[in-house]
């Protein structure tokens, strides 16, 4: 069979239209949902019902919206962690482990305790924030040094450190800090809880049962900081230049080894902050499985957001919704499958940013060309 036209891919010489990256991301998500629906149908599920349930569970009421935002909070910070590392083409796959170590370090404030537990709330929480970031940064420092000084592949080291972090966490919660033999520490004092809207239910009726906590503000502040670093600071310029062209960066006199270590630490600190926010704002104790894979979801979020900090916030809300709904949707792997398909669609669609697709009519006297994107 001979088609009446031929498809050509042409390298894009002009600038990518401003709307195109966003359009490919949105299109990828839509197509991924459709494909997942088809798979669900094929294995005998009811895609429409699941879809309706999905919407109701995530945006159907104020409480549902709050649930979604609560899940989006750690995702924003972890997504930012991946964003800043990926800008430098540093593949930090270890946000999950940095999250756990951040949560662990923040817990130390309460569990040791580092300050009297009747200190003012802002002292305890401030210290927890600092400790969480230090913990995450330390966990990012290890692969950073190995990569910078010895050229060890950071993908594998960050990944291995994830497993180590979770086991380290388990050692303490099964052992020294176990609450009466359960695999969790005793609940933290109220002074170590991030304030929640529900705490003000007495003054404002509408807030009762709304679990949204101060972590979301921390996440938004982090977003602005990361944006500022990347777009307004000299360091951000160095990071982006190194990511785009390592040789050029070297000739420009940028200290790449130092930047590798610093970026890994900054990335780790953001993931550690997410861990702190989760235990202080949601779980209120250190326990097993405080993260259902936030660190890995952060990778997809960063990529879907095209490494734009503000887009990370929007994408995180979508993925927060996926997690909220995914807890109840059967089969249980569906949310993960959807994430995988979304990421695949995004990276495939990137070809549209680099190439123009032309449909050229054959044997036509007018030789008209139809251009798509």
């Amino acid at each position, binding site marked *: 069979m001979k088609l009446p036209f031929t498809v050509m*891919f042409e390298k894009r010489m002009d600038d990518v239209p401003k709307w195109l990256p966003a359009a490919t991301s949105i299109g990828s998500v839509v197509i991924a949902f459709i494909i997942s629906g088809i798979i669900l149908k094929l294995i005998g599920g009811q895609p429409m019902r699941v879809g309706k349930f999905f919407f109701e569970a995530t945006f159907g009421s104020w409480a549902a919206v709050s649930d979604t935002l609560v899940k989006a909070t750690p995702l924003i910070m972890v997504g930012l962690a991946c964003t800043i590392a990926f800008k430098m083409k540093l593949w930090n796959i270890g946000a999950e482990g940095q999250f756990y170590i951040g949560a662990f370090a923040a817990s130390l404030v309460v569990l040791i305790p580092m300050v009297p537990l009747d200190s003012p709330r802002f002292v305890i929480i401030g210290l927890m924030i600092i400790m969480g970031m230090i913990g995450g940064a330390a966990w990012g420092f290890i692969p950073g040094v190995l990569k910078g000084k010895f050229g060890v592949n950071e993908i594998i080291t960050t990944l*291995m450190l994830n497993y180590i972090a979770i086991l380290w966490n388990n050692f303490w919660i099964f052992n020294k800090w176990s609450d009466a033999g359960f695999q969790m520490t005793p609940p933290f004092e109220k002074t170590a809880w991030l304030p929640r809207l529900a705490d003000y239910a007495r003054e404002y009726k509408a807030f009762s049962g709304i679990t949204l906590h101060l972590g979301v503000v921390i996440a938004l502040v982090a977003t602005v900081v990361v944006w500022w670093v990347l777009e307004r600071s000299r360091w951000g310029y160095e990071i982006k230049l190194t990511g785009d062209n390592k040789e050029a960066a070297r000739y420009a006199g940028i200290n790449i080894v130092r930047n590798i270590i610093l970026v890994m630490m900054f990335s780790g600190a953001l993931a550690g902050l997410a861990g702190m926010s989760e235990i202080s704002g949601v779980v209120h104790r250190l326990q097993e499985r405080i993260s259902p894979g936030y660190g890995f979801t952060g990778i997809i979020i960063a*990529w879907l957001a095209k490494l734009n900090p503000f887009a990370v916030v929007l994408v995180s809300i979508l993925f927060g919704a996926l997690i909220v709904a995914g807890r109840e949707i059967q089969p*249980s792997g569906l949310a993960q499958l959807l994430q*995988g398909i979304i990421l695949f669609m995004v990276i*495939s669609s990137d070809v549209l940013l680099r190439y123009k697709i032309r449909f050229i009519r054959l044997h036509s006297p007018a030789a008209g060309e139809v251009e798509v994107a």
Partner: protein
Amino acid sequence: MNLEIILHAGLATGTILLFAAIGEVFSERAGVLNLGVEGMMLLGAMAGFSTSLATGNVWLGLLAAIIAGGILSLAHGLVTIHFQADQVVSGLSLTFLGTGLALVLGEGLTGKNPPLVPSFNIPGLSAIPFIGPVFFTDHSLLVYVGYLFVPLAWYFIFRTRPGMHLRAVGEKPDAADTMGVNVYGLRYLYVFVGGCLAGLAGATISLSVSPGWYSTQTTSGQGWIAVGLVIFAQWDPLRAAFGAYLFGALRRGILDLQGPAFLLGMKNPLYINSNYGFFLQMTPYVLTILALVIGSRQAARKRLGAPAALGLPYIRGERGL
């Protein structure tokens, strides 16, 4: 603490890493980094397990595992070879995709008992003292297949013409292209081979070494360890096999440390407080990092590196596709 038992078990668990790592050697030698090994293994483990359960035929199960891993890898091939997407990100998404598919399709498989790959002694060889009981006694067929597969893979890559083409495609794709070698075709082929072997590695777990379906716990990060081993092995099947078996044995030996009440004449702290077992469980991951550090330093000293075109899409001229 019995050396014979540790080595015997090491060969069995090492076979898992061996198939996965050598599969990745093929893929990376062709210039395509595939980080989706964990996902392909998990899908293979699920496909093998469920097919063996449904058909009652373990050989069909192995075949299904191989095909499942291979097909999944083609998604990575399409995206990285044709769409020139970043191989790191594509490999990661392959892990998500494979894990998600395996979890969705593997619902309700836990606790089932399908036919497994048979184990047997090699007549004659199993009678050799020490070597017999370790290498040739009561192993699964897949372990013996592994013994044969390693030298064959090495011979293929380094001593045959197709093997030379494979390396050329990963080192200098433009030169290979000029010589009439089908760069795109071969890259697809070896990505597929890598996927098939990862699928087989998955089935080696679920149908032989530790039979059963335990969702993501089935592979528990072994796919990633295999990717690390390839770097340690400097893209050589023989070194990959050595690393895989060594890893298997160390893993088993370390677990056995928990058993005895006394160790070297001292009270065994692991025996007294089983919580120290968490540190034992960390060792495979710590060892992987150490192996990487050693591998990277050696590679730097000997100027041995990854295949030169590893991770780079090949674009013929300007047109690309």
